[in-house]
């Protein structure tokens, strides 16, 4: 998943960026509303982590602008404002969750998972597809009793497919997910990783729709 982190504090921003990246998500870290608005305009994010007090404005205004454009990207507010009235204002503006600083990084991970799960309509962090049991929380996949190990890039592609299970994901959307990690993406990179996923997960689970894209099949 590609995450937009909007946080102006250098120390906290770095730590959150590194932590989120360590959980196999691509992170774009912006320190101003202007930069965040520009990024959100051109990139489709899976989640936005949003500070409220930023040098060039309020995160609430950014959130309201996002929602006014019918952008339903899940947003978790990260703020030092602990008052319940701030929280109510944030939720009313369209936030999906609200985390008060200082927070534990594990709690942030749990909230991110809960919000994305809620957003994708899934009530559990474990997704079963045929024999496969994919645990998004601890990044583990089992086929029966055998664990399947995926690389970071393979997880990035799978995340993208899992974000809309059963729906077609275009090649360019998958390329974008890979770009987010700063990796080199060549013309056949997507096909290479799709091929690896098929080999590891089972050919029947990832199908190709010629000229359109790819989709994850067989969700139970």
């Amino acid at each position, binding site marked *: 998943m590609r995450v937009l982190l909007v946080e102006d*504090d*250098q*120390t*906290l921003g*770095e*730590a*959150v960026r*590194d*932590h989120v990246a*360590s959980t196999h998500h691509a992170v774009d870290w912006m320190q101003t509303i202007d930069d965040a608005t520009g990024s959100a305009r051109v990139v489709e994010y899976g989640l936005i982590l949003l500070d409220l*007090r930023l040098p060039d404005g309020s995160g609430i205004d950014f959130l309201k602008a996002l929602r006014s454009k019918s952008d339903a990207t899940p947003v978790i507010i990260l703020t*030092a*404002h*602990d*008052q*319940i*009235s701030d*929280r*109510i204002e944030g939720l009313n503006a369209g936030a999906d969750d609200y985390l*008060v*600083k*200082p*927070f*534990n*990084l*594990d*709690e942030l991970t749990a*909230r991110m998972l809960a919000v994305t799960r809620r957003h994708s309509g899934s009530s559990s962090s474990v997704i079963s597809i045929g024999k496969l049991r994919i645990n998004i929380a601890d990044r583990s996949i089992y086929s029966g009793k055998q664990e399947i190990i995926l690389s970071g890039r393979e997880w990035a592609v799978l995340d993208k497919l899992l974000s809309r299970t059963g729906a077609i994901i275009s090649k360019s959307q998958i390329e974008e997910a890979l770009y987010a990690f700063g990796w080199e993406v060549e013309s056949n990179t997507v096909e290479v990783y799709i091929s690896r996923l098929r080999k590891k997960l089972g050919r029947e689970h990832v199908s190709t729709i010629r000229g359109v894209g790819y989709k994850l099949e067989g969700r139970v």
Partner: protein
Amino acid sequence: MKHRSMTRRLIFSLTATLILFWLLATTAGIFVMQDEFGEIFDGSLQATTERLTPLVVDDLLQNAQLPESRRLQNLNESTHKGYLTYQVRDATGKVILHSHDVSATPFVAPLKRGFFQDDISRFYTVSAANNTIFVQVADSMAHRTEAAVEGGLALLLPVLVLIPASIIGIWLIVRRSIEPVNDLRQAISDKDSGNLAAIELQTLPRELQPIMLSVNRLLERLRSALTAEREFTANSAHELRTPLAGALAQTQMLKSELRAPTSNSRVTQIESSLQKLIKLVEKLMQLARAEARIGTSNETADLGNVLELVIEDFRRASEAGNKILYARAEAATLHRPVSEDAFAIVLRNLIENALIHGDPNTPVRIDLTRHGTIHIVNDGPVLNSNELKSIRQRFSRGKTTSPGSGLGLPIATELASQMGATLELKSPATNATAGFEAILRFS
């Protein structure tokens, strides 16, 4: 100190002054009237004597050989008691003629023209026939006194009747006049930290306008000071939390990257100290807010909704939060003009207190009753009355060994009081032999 009533003082002073002036005026009137009466009576006495004298002299000259004094009879027998009596005396003082209602004993008045007065009568003497005949007419002093008393009473009686009427009149006038003062007093007494709006009384008289303006200026300054204090505490919280969040997040990242157990253990200790520091800062910020009197608000808040948000926070934030059993009575509502932030701080402290100090293996019960009372109950050892009292003191942690700042209950107590609520602490809990119960009751 007993404060005097301005209304009572005004009524008493005005009435006393009015009565005093009336009495002075009446007394002066009586004296003037007595003096005027004296002049009238004297004039009448003199005129009577002078008109009587030629008649008497003529009569005496026609009956010059009378041996003894004569007493003149009335034409008609009458019971009328005359106020004027007279005697006609010769130069030796012998009474030669007198009116029917006096004896032949000569008057005490000397045989000398003019007025004379003793305790009983006032006399006027006229001489005739070359000072050989003296006519003396006497006017009873009792008659004069009676006239003066009756005249005085005629002035005094209406005054006595008017005194109670004037007291009622003054009371009504004072009450009506003092009404704007009462309005202003009420408007000022309605002000508290949650209502510092300027006083707007259009009907206030000119004399009270400066007071209203001064009070409004003070309210404005107070409002600014409180707002600045509240903003300062909120900003301080923000400014403190962000670096703490950075430090904690970097420490946790470092911990996840370190492989050596010794180093990892040291980082864990740093993380633990940071967590304690964060909790202490949090409590000190809450205390600062409580002292900035954030409890009240002009707007009515749905506190039932806030209660549920806070419970949801606890449930999501920690495993311990899942111990909370929440029950909201059917049709229970809790809408009050209090700050929802202050209410949330009170709840957080009470729930945190129950989770930290309660039995870890039994649930924490939170009930919102139909009347809007909140009960937070946890299991645990019984606290005696001294302990219940002392845990409301700052930095008093009772006999517990559980982690805590010793500030949660004092903060909750202070904010509850600002919100117009009472925080009752009970141990054992209601209908139980052990445990602790906090009851937050709104008036």
